[in-house]
């Protein structure tokens, strides 16, 4: 933390000095305290441990074919990892599908390593198979850090995914009538102390899209966007989304395209 936290604390103290009024000051103290906390977390993100593990998995021969993933085409050509995540999801001609980083990894594991990926799809989050996929996604996302988000809707199937994702964003169901838009369709809202990005705006979509995969301090786990979406739907009281299903890719496409031009900040660190 050091310099960063010290600066945030100084800012917090200055803010307290400027604002009068007991209520305003209370509110300000809370917000500034949380801000200082979040700043302090950024230095030394345990996500780096998962990036290291993901890189090892990428390079290590595995599966019935005893092959590595080094030949995997993430959209920029076989083996090219740097910058690939910033352009995902995208349309892939070989599968004739729009894929995000995690569904693409399944394709590569199946094609290159001969692995039956259904087990990876079915595995629960937090178990070794899912953890491996997420470590890989963390490594791949880290290789796009600071690059601009640049997804294209030029292919008709990419356009369709975007539009279906947009429609899904507003789809209400379940005993609580929740849709994604219930929480992520307005400016400046919070659940408890958690700020909710408005995914319909570029800034909001960027806040949501560009910081996952992220290390969650509450659980000490590394979460990918697929896990993030899975838990959103759990709390929406929906049935469980199938890992890497079209719906999850569609929502990802909606977020990523809305965030176009913003900067990839993965891997992040979150509450």
């Amino acid at each position, binding site marked *: 933390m050091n310099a960063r936290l010290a600066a945030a604390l100084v800012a917090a103290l200055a803010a307290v000095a400027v604002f009068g009024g007991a209520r305003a000051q209370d509110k300000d103290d809370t917000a500034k305290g949380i801000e200082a906390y979040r700043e302090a977390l950024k230095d030394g993100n345990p996500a780096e441990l998962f990036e290291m593990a993901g890189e090892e998995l990428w390079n290590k021969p595995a599966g019935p074919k005893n092959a590595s993933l080094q030949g995997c085409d993430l959209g920029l050509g076989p083996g090219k990892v740097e910058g690939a995540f910033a352009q995902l999801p995208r349309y892939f001609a070989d599968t004739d599908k729009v894929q995000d980083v995690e569904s693409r990894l399944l394709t590569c594991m199946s094609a290159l390593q001969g692995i039956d990926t259904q087990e990876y799809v079915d595995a629960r989050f937090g178990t070794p198979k899912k953890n491996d996929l997420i470590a890989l996604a963390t490594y791949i996302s880290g290789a796009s850090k600071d690059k601009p988000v640049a997804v294209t809707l030029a292919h008709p199937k990419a356009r369709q995914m975007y539009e279906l994702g947009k429609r899904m964003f507003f789809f209400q169901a379940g005993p609580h009538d929740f849709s994604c838009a219930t929480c992520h369709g307005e400016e400046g809202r919070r659940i408890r102390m958690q700020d909710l990005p408005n995914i319909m705006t570029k800034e909001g979509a960027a806040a949501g899209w560009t910081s996952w995969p992220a290390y969650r301090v509450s659980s000490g786990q590394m979460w990918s966007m697929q896990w993030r979406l899975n838990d959103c739907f759990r709390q929406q009281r*929906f049935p469980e989304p199938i890992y890497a299903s*079209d719906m999850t890719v569609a929502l990802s496409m909606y977020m990523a395209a809305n965030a176009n031009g913003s900067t990839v900040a993965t891997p992040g660190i979150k509450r």
Partner: protein
Amino acid sequence: MNRRTFCAVTAVLSLTVASAAGAQQASWGPGADDTAFATMLQASFRNAGRVTVERLKQDETQAFCSDPQLATSKAAAKQAEAIEAANLASVKWPSDGKWLGDWKSGERIAQSGRGLTWTDSPTQASGGNCYNCHQIDAKEISHGTIGPSLHQYRKLKGGTEQVMRETWAKIYNSKSSNACSNMPRAGHMGILKETELQDIMALLLDPESPVNK
């Protein structure tokens, strides 16, 4: 999703199309890409815990509110009114005639965001999720802002029969006064029991509740 649910979802979707009455001529969105959307839903969810894909089946309110363009259009104002009336008609008033229960229990229910997810056990009591979106007792600094502050609720609104009735209706079925409110329908959907609703009422409207101190 099993076949029956799939059919139910498609049926709801075609209802939406009919109600949009040709207003939707775009190539995307409700009415235009219903088949692709239903196919995607069917292929993308699975049963987990006690939660089945049956939950994807929308009621009329949910279907209406899932098309924000339609829901906020002038043309649909009459439809929104009809939805509010239908939701108001569903409200069950307290069977013992008492509006207020125990505010302390109400505070516990308001704090809890649990229940009805696929990871919750069948015996898990549902919470009210209230603090997730509302400020209530000012002592709780960790509160959401999706809904308005309810601090000092009775002091600001008063404790008349009229206020009791409106507040009950809002909590029991939030869509009774606002067709596409973000708030869940705690009574109508069976999230909270009658006594739990009375406890939440007390948290807001009992003069002894910290909310009104």
